[in-house]
C-alpha cells in the first residue's frame, strides 16, 4: 500500500492523518481542501459551564451569528464535535469530566479556552477551581475576558480557523504530543520545575 501514482507515499496516513501525506504538488491541493473544510464546518461541543456559556449562546444567537462560520450546531455528543469551547470555570469536581469529554472527541479536535477562568483560573485562585484548563486538556486558543464578549469569542474562533487552515494547529498538536501538563521555568534556574498544585 506504500506508493500510489502521483500522490506518493501514503503508508503514514493511517497513523499521522493528513500529516502523513507526501506533501507534493498534488497532495497540496487535497490537503488545502481538507483544511479548508475542517475550518469551515468546525462543530462546537456544548461545554458551557458558567457565565461564559451565556456569552457563547449569545454568540450563536441571531445578533452575533455563528452560523455564518458553519458553527451554529452545538453538538451535545462529543463524538460529533470538533471543537470544545470550555466556557466557564472548571471546578475540581468537573475536571475529570472535562477530560472524559475531551477524550471522547474524535481527532482532529481543538480546544478554545473561553474566559479568564478557563484560561488561568481567573479571579478565583483558590481550592475549588482548576487554575487553567490547560492543566487538564491541551488548549489551542485562549480568549480573555470576564466574560469575553461575543466579538472576542469570534476573534478567538477566527484565529483558530486561520490556524486550522494554514496547518499550524495540526502541526502543533503533533509537536506537543497532544497531552496536557505545563512546565514553568524560572529565568535563572537550569532545571524545569513542574507546577505543584495544592494537595488534596
Amino acid at each position: 500500500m506504500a506508493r500510489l501514482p502521483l500522490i506518493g507515499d501514503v503508508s503514514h496516513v493511517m497513523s499521522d492523518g493528513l500529516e502523513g501525506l507526501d506533501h507534493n504538488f498534488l497532495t497540496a491541493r487535497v490537503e488545502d481542501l481538507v483544511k479548508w473544510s475542517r475550518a469551515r464546518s468546525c462543530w462546537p461541543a456544548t461545554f458551557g459551564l458558567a457565565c461564559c456559556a451565556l456569552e457563547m449562546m449569545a454568540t450563536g444567537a441571531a445578533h452575533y451569528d455563528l452560523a455564518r462560520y458553519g458553527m451554529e450546531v452545538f453538538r451535545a455528543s462529543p463524538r460529533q464535535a470538533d471543537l470544545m469551547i470550555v466556557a466557564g470555570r472548571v471546578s475540581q469536581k468537573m475536571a475529570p469530566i472535562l477530560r472524559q469529554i475531551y477524550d471522547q472527541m474524535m481527532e482532529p479536535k481543538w480546544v478554545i479556552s473561553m474566559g479568564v477562568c478557563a484560561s488561568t483560573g481567573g479571579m478565583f485562585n483558590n481550592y475549588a477551581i482548576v487554575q487553567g484548563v490547560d492543566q487538564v486538556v491541551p488548549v489551542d486558543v485562549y480568549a480573555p475576558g470576564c466574560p469575553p464578549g461575543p466579538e472576542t469569542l469570534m476573534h478567538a474562533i477566527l484565529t483558530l480557523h486561520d490556524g486550522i487552515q494554514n496547518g499550524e494547529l495540526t502541526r502543533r498538536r503533533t509537536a506537543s504530543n497532544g497531552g496536557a501538563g505545563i512546565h514553568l521555568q524560572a529565568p535563572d534556574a537550569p532545571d524545569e520545575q513542574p507546577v505543584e498544585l495544592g494537595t488534596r
Partner: protein
Amino acid sequence: MSDVAEQVTNPMGPGRTDLGPSERVYRRDETSPVLRLSEAEAAVLGGSPDDPPTDDVADQRMILNMGPSHPSTHGVLRLMLEMEGEAILRSKPVIGYLHTGMEKTAEDLTYLQGPTNVTRMDYAAPLFSELAFSLAVEQLLGLEVPTRATWIRMLMCELNRVSSHLLFQATNGMDLGAVSMMIYGWREREEVLRFFEKVTGLRMNHNYIRPGGVAADLPDGWQADVRRLLELIPPRLDEYDTLLTGQPIFRGRLQGVGIITPAEALALSATGPILRSTGYAWDLRRDQPYLAYDEVEFDVIVGTHGDSFDRYAIRQNEIRESLRIVEQILDLMPAGDYRVQDKKVTPPPRARIDESMEALIHHFKIFTEGFHVPQGETYAAVESPRGELGCYLVSDGGPKPYRMHIRGPSFVNLQTLPHLMEGGLIADGVAVISSVDPIMGEVDR
C-alpha cells in the same frame, strides 16, 4: 408595617385556606421521591451487565445518570434518576460541579471588591446578588443611600429581571423543542444587554451596584434608550404568546407536568415563581419592600395549579410587570447623587486626586486596604427572578467580611426537583428542570 400585615395575612387569597398535602416531602425511606444514595451504593445497586435477566419487577428498575455535561440540564447539574422504563420514580440532583469557593474568596476580598465576587454567582441576574451584598454592607455601616441611587438600582434590577426571564423563555422553549424561541429570546436580551453596556460598561457581571450606591451615574440620553426598550419588547412578548402560550403542543407538554402543592413548596423553602405558581402570593418586593418598591405600582403574578405551565406564564407576565415598573421609574427618577458622599466609603472623583492630598489618601486607603465595617451580623434579602436571594454577612470590624453566606434561591429550589419529577417521564423531567430555572453558579457558589 400594619398595611403589609393586612396584605399578607392570607397569601393564598381571600377565603382559601387549603394548602394541599405535603406528606411526601417529609419521608425519609424508599418511598420518598428523593433518591438518597451515594455513588458507591448506586454502583452496587446497579448490578453487573452480565447478570441474567429476571422477571422480578424490582429488577426492571435502573439508575440512569443525566449530566453534568448535558444540553438540557441548564448548566452543570447532574441527576441520578431511578427509572422504571421511561417513568422516573425517584431522583437525586447532584451538584457541586461549579463550586467556586466564592464564600471563601469573599473573606479575602475587601467590601468594595465584594460585588465582583457575588455578581458571578447568579450570572443571569448579576445585579441582584450585588444588590443583596450591598444592602447587607450598608446595614452594617448604617449608611443611608441617596434616593437617586436607590431608583437607579431599582431600574437596573427590573431590567435585569426582564433579561433573566427572557433567558428563561429562550431556554424553556428550546428544551421543549421550539428551537426558534431560543433565537427570539436572545434577540430581545441583546437589546437589554446593550443598555447595560451603555450604563455599566459590561454586558454581564457588571460590578455596578456597590456599597454606598452605584458605580456611575446613568449616561445622558438614557430615557430615550429605556423608552426604546419599552416600545420594543411588549410586541415581541405578544409574538411569544402567539408562538407558545396558546399552542396545543406546548400546553400539552407543560400543563399538569411538575405539580407541587403550596404546603410542599413552603416546607421545601421554595420561593419565587415556584412558590407563586401554587397560588401562594409572596413577593418580597410587595411584602417586605426594599429600595423604593413601595412607591411604584405593580402586580404580583400567581398561578393556580403549581405546574410548569404556570411557572412559564408567571415569568412571561413578570416581564410585563417589570416593564410597567420601569415606565414608572422613567417618570419618577429623582435627581441627586448616585453614590453616598461619605469620604470613607466612596472613592473621590479622579480629578480631585491631583488637587487634594486628603482625596489621594482616601483613594489609596479605599483601594488598597478597604474601608472598615463595624462588627456585627446581618441578613438582607431581595426578590431575584428565581426567588429570595439573601446575604448573611458577619463582620469583625476589619476591611474584609469575616463570613459571607449567600442564600441562593436556586440552591434551595433544587430540592423541589425530585418531587416535581416523581412519576413523570424523562421528557417531562426536562420540562420540569427548565421550569425551575436553576442557575448553577448560585447553586454551587
